[in-house]
Structure formats: C-alpha cells, structure tokens
C-alpha cells in the first residue's frame, strides 16, 4: 500500500478521517471517536489489516489520546490510528467486537490513563492491585514519599 492509496480508500468512505504519511508505514490516521467500530471493520475486512498489535493512551491534560497499531500480514505494513476524547468524559467504544486482542490492552489503558471503554466484556485492573483507586499515568497523579503509609492487603 504505497503513498496516497490508504488516504484514497479511506476518505471516500469516512470523510472525517485525516490520513498523513508517516515514515515507512502505510500512514497515520486520525479519526473522530464515533466511527471507531466502522473504521476498524473496514480496516480489517476491506484493507486487510488483520492484526491489532497495540492499544495505548496518552494524557494531554484537556483531552486524552487513544492510539492503535494495526499490522497487515499480507502487505507487511503497519498503520497507526489515533483518536482523542475529552478528559471531562473520557468514554470510548471498546474495540473487542472487532479485534478480541484489544481486551487486555484496553484494560491497561483504562487502569493507567483512565479511558472508560464502553461495552468492554471484562474491565478489571490488569497491572495494579485489586481495589486500586487511581489512574497513575495521568499527569495529575502525584508521586509521594510513603510516610505514614497504611498497609492494606486484601484477604486472599
């Protein structure tokens, strides 16, 4: 998939997406959060990007960015996709109906950056302990010297 081909095939169907070239990948796609499931179905079934390698999130204070990496086994190419949700209501549809490998990635993005993935089948903490109340990779999270720490370990 060379040059402008990704842009040509996507923008006709989804006028809201912005495609720009990025290094040796097929391109970098920015899309509004409403069309997430339709866009990824088109990427998988129409364009042949059949493997979801990564879901991550970044805190940009006013809004939070969720990014995805897709790999096409036929074209041997990556494509990067990202969307932004407001920090006041960080809700995004879960990608698990399209790519089931999004399950654990979204759990991690939820517990560390606080993106609420709607209709996720199993939104439990993955890395932090059960009952952990913070989203520690947010910029508002303060590291602290653990003086006077109260140790609470749940019953096994």
């Amino acid at each position, binding site marked *: 998939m060379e040059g402008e081909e990704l842009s040509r095939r996507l923008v006709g169907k989804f006028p809201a997406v912005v495609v720009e070239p990025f290094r040796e990948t097929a391109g970098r796609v920015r899309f509004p959060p409403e069309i997430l499931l339709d866009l990824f179905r088109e990427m998988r079934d129409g364009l042949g990007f059949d493997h979801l390698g990564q879901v991550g999130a970044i805190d940009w204070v006013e809004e939070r960015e969720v990014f995805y990496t897709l790999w096409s086994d036929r074209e041997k190419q990556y494509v990067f996709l990202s969307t932004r949700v407001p920090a006041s209501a960080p809700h995004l549809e879960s990608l698990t109906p399209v790519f089931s490998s999004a399950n654990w990635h979204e759990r991690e993005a939820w517990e560390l950056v606080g993106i609420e993935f709607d209709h996720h089948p199993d939104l439990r903490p993955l*890395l*932090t*302990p059960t009952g952990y109340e913070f989203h520690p990779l947010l910029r508002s999270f303060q590291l602290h010297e*653990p003086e006077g*720490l109260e*140790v609470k*370990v*749940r019953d096994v």
Partner: protein
Amino acid sequence: MGRLSAAKPVLTTPAAAPTAEDSPLPMATEPAVPFIEIETLRAREFLPAAKEALGSLLSEQAQGKLIRPMFNWAGRNSLFPLHWGLACCAIEFAAAFGARWDAERFGVVPRSSPRQCDLLIVNGTVTWKVAHKLITLYEQMPEPKWVIAMGNCATGGGPFRTAYSVVPGVDKLVPVDVYIAGCPPRPEALLDGILRLEQLIKERKE
C-alpha cells in the same frame, strides 16, 4: 497486619476423650492417639517435649545450657530458604548457590515449597500486585521462620520508593530480621547476611 498476628501459632491441646455419656452412639473409649503423636513432632513443640523428657534427669540450669543451644544449633545450620526469585537480586541469589560461592557449605539449601522452608529471602522489587502472595508464602512456612530483605528494593523500595506500584520496603508486610544493602548485593553480601542471621539464631533465648 491483622492477618499476620492472627497467623501466630496456637498450641493446640488434644480434646478430652469422648465418653459414652456424651454421645448416644457407641464410641471407642480410646482417643485418636496416632494423630496426636504426629502433632507433637512439630518443631515448635520440640522444646516443651524435650524439657518434659529431660526434666527428671537434669537440673534447671543444665536444661538451659543444653536444650535451647542444641535447638538453635540445629536450626542455624540447616536454614532452608524459599526458592522464589522476584527481580535482578534473584540472579545474585542464584549465583550464591552456584559452585563459586557455594552457600550449601553453610547448610543453606533452597527449597521449592514454602512448607519445607524456614527462611524467606525477598530478593527483588515487591509490587502491590504481588504483596498478598508474599504474605501467603510467609504464612505457609512453618515456625520458627526468618526473613532476609535482600537489596535496596526489598529494604526500602530502592529507586522505586515513590512509585505508585511498589511496596516501599518489605517490612511493611512481614517482619524482617536482616537487611542487606546493595543494588544488587554481591553473593558475598548475601552470605554475610546469612551468617549474621545465624548469629541472631545463636543468641535466640525465648
């Protein structure tokens, strides 16, 4: 810490033998003797059993000079640490039991089950995710038991002290007897910590 104090050993006394009046059903008059005999073989009941056996033969002073030192001598020369690697200190831990340093000459043999261990060497960063598993392993070890915090992470959190996911010192979870500094400490430092622990056991009174 409530669970730790609750897990202290409680000396159980064998229940009184049931009599024919207690139960409408016909019962054997003899209690279950074999089970009680196995119970008395536990390490924590060695001292009362030895004192009872030798009480008529030796004076109080001779008992104090014989029984407790013999118990300590046996304990400190057969420390069995749990084979539980957490982080990079586990590499130094493994090296200490290899041919070059050979910790087995001090009677220190790593075992794979906490039921067979009396020494927990916490060799690495303890995260909150693994904290309750560490407490479970500690509680599964039979008494008497000791803990060595190996390296800066286990001692006080190390470079991750202010991090959101790391326990700032394993003494927040279990009682620690010997702290070893270093990042990671060399196998010599681990051996030195084990020898200091043996000194502590040698001086143990109660």
